[in-house]
Each structure stands twice: as C-alpha cells, then as structure tokens.
C-alpha cells in the first residue's frame, strides 16, 4: 500500500472503522498500564526532591496533563487545516469530539499545578507565564466548545471550529511569549519550573512512562471517539447494519 493510498483510506470512515477495533483496545490497555505503573513508580519508588520533599511527586501527573493540554489543541489545529483544505471527513469528527478531552486535561493541569504550588511556594495560584498561558488555553477550549454549540448546522459548525482552532494555534506562541515576557519583567522571577536542577534518571524515568501513557490515552480517545462517531454518522450504511447483526449474535 503506497502512502497516498493509505492517506485516502484514512479519510474513509468504513476502512478506518474496520481497521481500528484492535488499535483501540491496545492503546487503551497500554495507556492504563503505563499510567498506573508510572504513578506507582512515581509515588513510591522515585526519590523525594531535596528541596520540595514529597510534594514534588505531583510532577508525575501535572506534566503529562500539561503536555496533553497543549498537544490536543495542536491536534485540533492540524485537524482544522485538514478539514478546511481537504474537507477530510475524519478531521471534522476529531474537531467535534476532542475539545472536551483537551479541556479536561487543561483543567487537570491547572488543578494539579495549584495543588503543587500550595505546599511548595505557599500559594495556590500565581500569574506566572506558564499558569497564565495554560489558563488562556482553557478559555480557547471553551471558545471552541461554545462556538460549536452556537452554530446549528453541523458542517458549518465543524468548519467554523476548524478556522477558530487554526487561528488559535497561530496565536498561542504570541500569547505564550507575551505573558512570559510580562511576568519575568515585572514580577521578578518568583520561580521557574524550567530551571529545576537537572533530574537524575530515577526521577525522570517515571515521568517519561507517564507521558507515554498520556499520549496512549490521547490516541485511544481519538480512535474511540472516531469509532462511535462513525457508527452514528453511517448508521444507514449496509456495513454498519452487518456489524450490528454480527454483534447481536455474539
């Protein structure tokens, strides 16, 4: 199968549905396995930080959530380009179904960040560069959600959200730069997560496991949401009816 052929098939709901059943189970299982293993490793076996003590263990849920929060938005932007330029059906399904997942991950990143901030820096919330841009990311997700809910026609809603996601992705670097510039110049560096001393492997290995797990969860969500959306969309098609019959005889 050439790359071009693969590309066309990826745009075809039927082919995707038939291929993806196994992917979904594998990805979900892998996600649970990696995340649980990474959490236990991080909670019980990673050494405590010499400055922050055990509160540093929150990093193992905070960082994966924050990475996913950004990755999901980037993925929405990429899906937006695919939808606007090539009118790819699958891209619309991605745009419709992953906004909630991304928003929840952003909320989790903000929550764990606040919970981490309290014992470490003595405050739940501070407007530093990263927290501010993550908060704005949450508002961007809300915007996408609200826009989709406001437009009654499904196809128009998909394309409007696609455009908004692309505009958002173009703006995110500017937003990030501006808030970072603002906070470092005017508040003095209260703290910098980036300037933590280089971690030993015993500390970052569980983090790596959890980040991989988070990406598997992301992928499992994409596949699962696409599968249910395809069934709903193509419920009249012959192959869906065949599938339902086969499932009911089981």
């Amino acid at each position, binding site marked *: 199968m050439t790359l071009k052929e693969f590309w066309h098939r990826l745009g075809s709901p039927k082919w995707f549905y038939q291929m993806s059943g196994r992917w979904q189970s594998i990805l979900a299982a892998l996600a649970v396995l990696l995340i649980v293993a990474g959490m236990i490793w991080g909670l019980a076996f990673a050494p405590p930080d010499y400055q922050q003590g055990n509160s540093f263990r929150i990093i193992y849920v905070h960082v994966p959530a924050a990475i996913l929060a950004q990755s999901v938005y980037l993925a929405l932007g990429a899906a937006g380009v695919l939808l606007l330029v090539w009118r790819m059906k699958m891209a619309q399904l991605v745009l419709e179904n992953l906004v909630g997942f991304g928003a929840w991950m952003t909320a989790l990143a903000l929550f764990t960040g606040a919970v981490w901030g309290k014992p470490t820096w003595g405050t739940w919330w501070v407007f530093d560069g990263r927290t501010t841009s993550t908060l704005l990311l949450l*508002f961007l997700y809300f915007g996408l959600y609200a826009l989709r809910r406001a437009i009654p026609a499904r*196809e128009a809603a998909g394309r409007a959200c696609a455009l908004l996601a692309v505009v958002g992705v173009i703006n995110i670097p500017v937003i990030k730069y501006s808030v970072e510039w603002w906070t470092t110049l005017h508040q003095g560096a209260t703290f910098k997560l980036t300037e933590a001393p280089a971690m030993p492997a015993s500390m970052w290995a569980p983090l790596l496991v959890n980040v991989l797990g988070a990406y598997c969860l992301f992928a499992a969500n994409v596949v699962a949401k696409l599968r249910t959306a395809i069934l709903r969309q193509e419920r009249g098609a012959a192959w869906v009816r065949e599938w339902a019959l086969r499932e009911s005889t089981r």
Partner: protein
Amino acid sequence: MFAVQFRRDWLSLMRAKDEAINPLVFLFLAATLFAIAFGGEPQRLTGLAPAIIWVLVLLANLLSLEALFRRDFEDGTLEQLVLLAEPPFAAVLGKVAVQWCLSGVAMTVLAPMVALLLNLPVGVLPALMLGLLLGTPALSLIGAVGAALTVGLRGGGVLLALLLLPLYLPVLVFGVSATLDTMAGVGAAAQFYWLAAISAMALTLAPFATTAALRISVEQS
C-alpha cells in the same frame, strides 16, 4: 475594491451615527465608574490607569465589532460581497478599516480625556496614544475574524467576547506595559515594536481568515 467598500461603509455609518458613537460613550462611562469607585483617592488610580484604559479599550472594541457584519448579513449584501467581490479580502479589509477608524483611531484621539478622568500623568500620554494607535489595528483585524464567525448567531455578543478576549491578550500585555514603563521612566521601544509586529501579522493573515469565516457563515444561512 478596498476604496469602494471603505466609502460605502463610511457613509452608511455616518447615517447611523449612534452605532459608531455608543462604544465610545461606553468607554467614557466605564472610566467614570472607575474614577468614582476609587472615590477620594485619585492618586491610587494613577498606577492602575494604563491597565484600566487598555481593558476598557478592548471591551469597547468588542462592542463595536458586534455590528461589523450584522447589517450586511441581514440584508444580503454580505452574501454578494463574499461570493462576487474580486478579491473579497480587499472588500473585507475596507470594512475593517472603517471599523478601525471609528474605534481604534477615535479611541486614540479620545484617550487623553479618558486618561484625565483616571489621573494619568500628562507626560505618559504620547506613549499611551502611540500604543493605542499601533495596537488597535490588531484588535480590529483579529476581531473581524470573530465577528465573521459569529455573525447571525443568537447570543453572538457574549460568544464574541469569549472567542476574542484570549486572542487580545498579547496586545493588552504590550500596550499596558509600554505605558507603565514610560511612566517609570524606562524606555518602551520593545513594546511598541511588538505591538506593530502583532498588527502587521494580523494585517497579513486576518483578512484571509475573515473571508473564509464569512464564507462559512453565509453558506450555512
């Protein structure tokens, strides 16, 4: 195309003056509220004045954006504009330019009076006005994308705010800090360059996004 559209919109706005003036009245009214709320301590306002003015400018701009495409959408001219105008983004740019003249430029001109209400030192006025002049084109241009996406939707006003305010943040940050740095006696050249750069970027990208958004909005109706 740009000139034709500009003239047409300008004339129609001159006929419906209140639509253009109301956001400016809002700016003054809200600034007055701040001044009254701070009561007998105008000196406390001085340090906050740049932030207050810029936030109010953002909001007043949102108010004037809501009407940007509405009338044309309702009477069907928008459909012709998007489908027939060649090239459509020049016409779109013409509409946005009119909106900018009546929000951004007007607010820049009126800024000294608002600044007076909020006890901002006179020496800072040039910086405030330069910041507004460089930053408001970005607000109007990015705002046009949002206005185009929400035209014809129910509850479009709040939705517009939700979509646009996060995107306005960089302009707010650089605008406020330019004024504050000038007040503190530090040069603010970097912030002015940034405002200009953001506006230039918006000028190159936003008209195309606005045209695409208008197509989506027109096609669904």
